[in-house]
Each structure stands twice: as C-alpha cells, then as structure tokens.
C-alpha cells in the first residue's frame, strides 16, 4: 500500500508546535553541543598541563602523537575491538530473549519479562560492577565455590582482564540490545513466517530467510547502540579491568583528571567521538543494504 508522506510542519500542526520543542532544543544546544564543541576546539591547541584556555594557535601535535605512539593507537584498536565483541555477545544473548518477549502474548508474562530486563537498568552502574566483583573476584563466589569443590587449585582469572570488562559491558548493555530488538521483532507479522512455511520452508529456513532479515533494523540499531555505549564506558573498564585494559576513556580520564593535560585528553575524546560517527555511518550503509532497497 502506498503511504502518503506527511511533512513535518503538517504533522506539527503548522509552526506553533515548534515552540514546544524550543526548550529541549536550547537545553541540547547549551549543555551538549557547546561543551562538546569547546572540548573538540581545544584539542587543536598545544598541550599545556593545567591550562584550559582556548587560543587561536592551531596545531595537530596532539593527533600526531596519538597516531605515532603505540600506547594510544593500540588503545583505539582495543576500544573498537571491545565494542565489536560486546555488541556481538549482547546480540547473541539478547536476540533469543527479545524473541521470547516479542512472542509472549500473555500480558502478565510479557510484563514480567519486560520488568526483568528493565530492572537490571535500575541500579547504578558502579553498584552493579561491585556486585559483579563479589561474584568474579579471585576470592569471589565463583572461584571460592570451584576451589571448595576441588575442581581448581588456583583462582580463575575472571577479572582485571578483557574477559571481566566484556562481562561487565554486556551486563550493562544487554537491556539496550533487547529493547532495540523487541519492537522490531514484534512488528514482524506471524503470517509472514507462516507463508514461508507453507511455501516449503522449514522452521529454520523460515527464520533465516524471513524473520532474521526483517529483524535487521533492530539488530543494526541495537549493535550500534551497544557499540557506542561500550567504547565510551569508563566505569566498567576501570572497575572490571582494574586499569589493565586500557581503552580510550581511561586515557581521557588519566590525561585530564590526573595529569591536567586538557588539550591532549580532548584530542583522545575527539578520536572516540569520530569512532562513534564512523560506526553510525557503517550502520547507515548496512541498513540501506539489508533493507533490500527500501529506504
């Protein structure tokens, strides 16, 4: 069926409703755009510890330093790799859960599952990470149980390494993945899967050829969101990685908070921001390609 486009001004009932959007717009401008732009701006100033004044002395020194020192460019790669792994794990864990929620018609059970997912977002992230540490530390529940059962002699290295960081980040981002997927999966009309079945597709083929491609917008949006949340997380790598898994946000924190090197920290932040932008671009290309020409 053809749908007629409705212009934004029509949908907003003329121009008057724009006034309702103005406060949000001003807030966004004042407290997001301006600070981020100023941070980006000082990344082009020479690094002077303890000084935060923006000058017009333009230099690329900070960026050259980032891309010539392994300490920094390896952190970029580590951040990207971590984001990709976390997005993949969250997708593999989140898709079945989202599928279950989307297909649960019983209203009570559906609400219960939703609460389960949302509840994990209610606690502050720091508190949740301390909880994970109680579970996964060298003397934590898992290791003491395994040692108690004489299954291992030495504690397993579950924390203060990349594994711990991935577990922490997946725990934090999983609800976002699930929420991105549920609506999309629910919107896939069951008769599409049934049509595929009666045309000769087994359950698996119907999933692979119909349900999965139609889930793609949710898969892409969820992965993008999880990727962006993961590469920008400071708390999780700091607590679960114990500063041993050095990713971009840790450099930013160390440069600015510990060394007062605002300009260099800002340059690392700019790289982080750029990585997210590239991810958005990749997402957009993938969305166009997987939508079968639907734009």
């Amino acid at each position: 069926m053809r749908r007629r486009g409705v212009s934004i001004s029509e949908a907003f009932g003329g121009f008057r409703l724009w006034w309702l959007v103005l406060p949000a717009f001003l807030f966004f401008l004042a407290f997001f755009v301006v600070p981020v732009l100023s941070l980006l701006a000082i990344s082009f100033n020479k690094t002077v510890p303890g000084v935060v004044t923006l000058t017009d002395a333009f230099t690329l020194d900070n960026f050259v330093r980032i891309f010539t020192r392994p300490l920094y460019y390896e952190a970029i790669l580590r951040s990207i790799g971590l984001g990709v792994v976390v997005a993949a794990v969250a997708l593999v864990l989140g898709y079945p859960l989202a599928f279950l929620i989307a297909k649960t018609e019983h209203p009570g059970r559906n609400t219960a599952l939703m609460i389960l997912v949302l509840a994990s977002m209610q606690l502050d992230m720091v508190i949740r990470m301390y909880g994970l540490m109680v579970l996964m530390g060298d003397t934590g529940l898992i290791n003491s149980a395994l040692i108690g059962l004489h299954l291992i002699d030495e504690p397993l290295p579950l924390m203060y390494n990349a594994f711990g960081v991935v577990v922490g980040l997946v725990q934090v981002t999983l609800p976002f993945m699930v929420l991105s997927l549920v609506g999309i999966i629910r919107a896939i009309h069951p008769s599409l899967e049934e049509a595929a079945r009666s045309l000769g597709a087994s359950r698996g083929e119907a999933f692979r050829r119909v349900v999965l491609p139609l889930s793609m917008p949710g898969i892409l949006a969820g992965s993008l969101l999880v990727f962006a949340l993961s590469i920008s997380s400071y708390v999780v790598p700091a607590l679960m990685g114990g500063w041993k898994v050095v990713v971009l946000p840790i450099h930013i924190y160390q440069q600015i908070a510990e060394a007062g090197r605002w300009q260099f920290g800002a340059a690392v932040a700019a790289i982080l921001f750029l990585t997210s932008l590239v991810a958005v671009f990749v997402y957009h290309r993938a969305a166009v390609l997987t939508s079968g020409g639907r734009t």
Partner: protein
Amino acid sequence: MSDIRLVNLTKSYGEGNAVSDVDLAIEEGEFFSLLGPSGCGKSTTLRMIAGFVRPTSGRILIGGDDITALPPERRDIGIVFQNYAIFPHMNVAENIAFGLKLRKLPKAEIARRIEDSLRQVGLSGYETRYQRQLSGGEQQRVALARVLVTEPRILLLDEPLSALDKGLREEMKFWIKDLQKKLKITTIYVTHDQDEALTMSDRIGVMAKSRIVQVGTPQEIYERPKTLFVTSFIGHSNVVDVAVRRVADGMAVVALGGSELASRAGAGLAEGAAAKLVVRPENILIGTALREGDARLPATVVSETYQGAIVRYRLAVGDQEIVAERQNQAHVERFAPGTAVTIGWAPDWSETLLA
C-alpha cells in the same frame, strides 16, 4: 475418493472449543467455502489443515494420506492470508521465487515460471516492485501467484477479499473463481460473506459456534436451509410463529393467522411442536399472482416501499408481520397501504423448522 477428509476435527483453547467435531469430505477440484459469522472457527479449521494449529483431536487426510502430524512445509498446501503476507524485504519476483528456490529448481526454470505466473495474474512488468509499491488488489494477485507457482495440491484462502473495496471485491470474486476452474485445484475458501460463498462455491459448509451446521450446494443452502441459524444467516427470510397441526411425508400443515397452510417439514418436526415457518420475501405472491395449489392466507398491507427494481410490502398477518418483495415489472399489480389482500406461496418454497 475425496481429496480432503476432515475426521472429527476438534480444537479447544482452554475450556471453549474453537472447532468441534468437524467432519467433511471435499472432492478433487472442488471449490468449497466455509461460511459463518465471526469467531465461529473458520480460520482455525483452515489453519489446522495448513498445519499451523495442532488439532486437539481428529484427523486430516489428503488424497487418503493422514497428514495430521506433518509440518506445514511438507503438506503441499498453498495458503493466501487475509493480509496477503507479501515478504516486504523481497520484490515481487523474489517473493514468487521463494518457494521455487526452496525446491532447488534451476535458475532458468525459476525465471520462466515467474514470468508465466505473473502473466497469469496480469502483473507482467511488476517484477521489481516491493510490497509497499503495490495496491491491495495487486498484493493479493502476487500472493496467489506466489502460491500457485509451486503447484500445490490444495489451495486455502482465508477471507482474501475482505481487505479490498467493494468494486474490486466484485471483480476479484469472478477472477479467482475463473482461475480456480482453469487450474482445477481443490480449494477451501473461508468467508463470512454469503454473496461470495453463493457466487463462487461448488459447495458451502455453513459454520456456527465451532460446528458445521449444513453442507450443500449454494442452491441447497439458499433454498433448503436446515436450521433457523442458516436461514437467518443466508439472505433475509420471514420467520413467523406457527402451530404444527399435522406432519406427513416430509410436509407439514401449520396454523397461521387462522388459516391452515402446507409447507415442507424440517427435521424432527412433530404435531403440537413450537415451530417457525420460514419463507423468503421474493417467494411471497400477492392477489392474482397466486397459482392453484399455493398456500393462501388473508393479510393487510401495512406499507409499500418503492426500491426501484423491487417494491417491498410489509403485510400484517394476525398479529405478526411478513415482508414481501415483488419485481417492479410491467403489468405487476401494486397495493396501497390498508388494502386487504390474499397472500401465499408455493408450499415447497416454505419450510417449517423446530424453534
């Protein structure tokens, strides 16, 4: 041997039955309609045949083989859904190729079949369109093409016309019927629209409250309804209270407004039973139109409504009312309100049913 056999097919959800003890035999090449009001279990019956709903009890046989336990993809049954279910991420050609690719046909063969089937449904040149670029009628043709191209043994259609506007519905009714006749494919058609069922079907199964209440040709269903439900569901009928005087040889003599009339006797009718006489408005004759042997009784014209091709009379008979419709033709007598008239009908065109 019949092509489809449903044996005591039952589906219950919780305490209530969606389908109860449906027993049907559908012949090869037959166009069979399941007709009934909303919620009577038509779709559930169809979905059990297609394999999407597991029967609580009973069996489904196709060409003599029990397919009750087979998954949908192994039943060789094509189904067209009410919403057409065109895959939105594939264009028309890819939609039609879906079943063919699963059957691992050679590429050239697939291309040839897509072309043929699009020609058959009058959509040549639509190969690269997507679902959102198709009208409802076009989507329906694609859905049909997608099913028919795989040459299924059985075609199931679940209210395929209900989403279309009236003009298109009329057109598609005959188009689908013609296509079905040409392909000689055994078809079960689900609808709640009596016009569709009457014009398209070889036979109709009328469903009410999870059961099949009557199976017959459109003519049998229309002219010989077996229950008051079928009577009231198909067309408009006069249903008046009568007292049964005698029953013999399938005919009953009943008392209505002081007169005694003959009519066909429904099942289980006996002297003294509370009963309803059923007669369609178009079968009621007035005055000189009556023939020898017709049941007759006196009536008074209450009102006359001119409707172009027909004129409609409300007639008082005792304390009940009967509606008569007369073709508005040359030389047909008209009656003003208040006129005392004799009305009647051929006994064979009326039926007395248990109330």
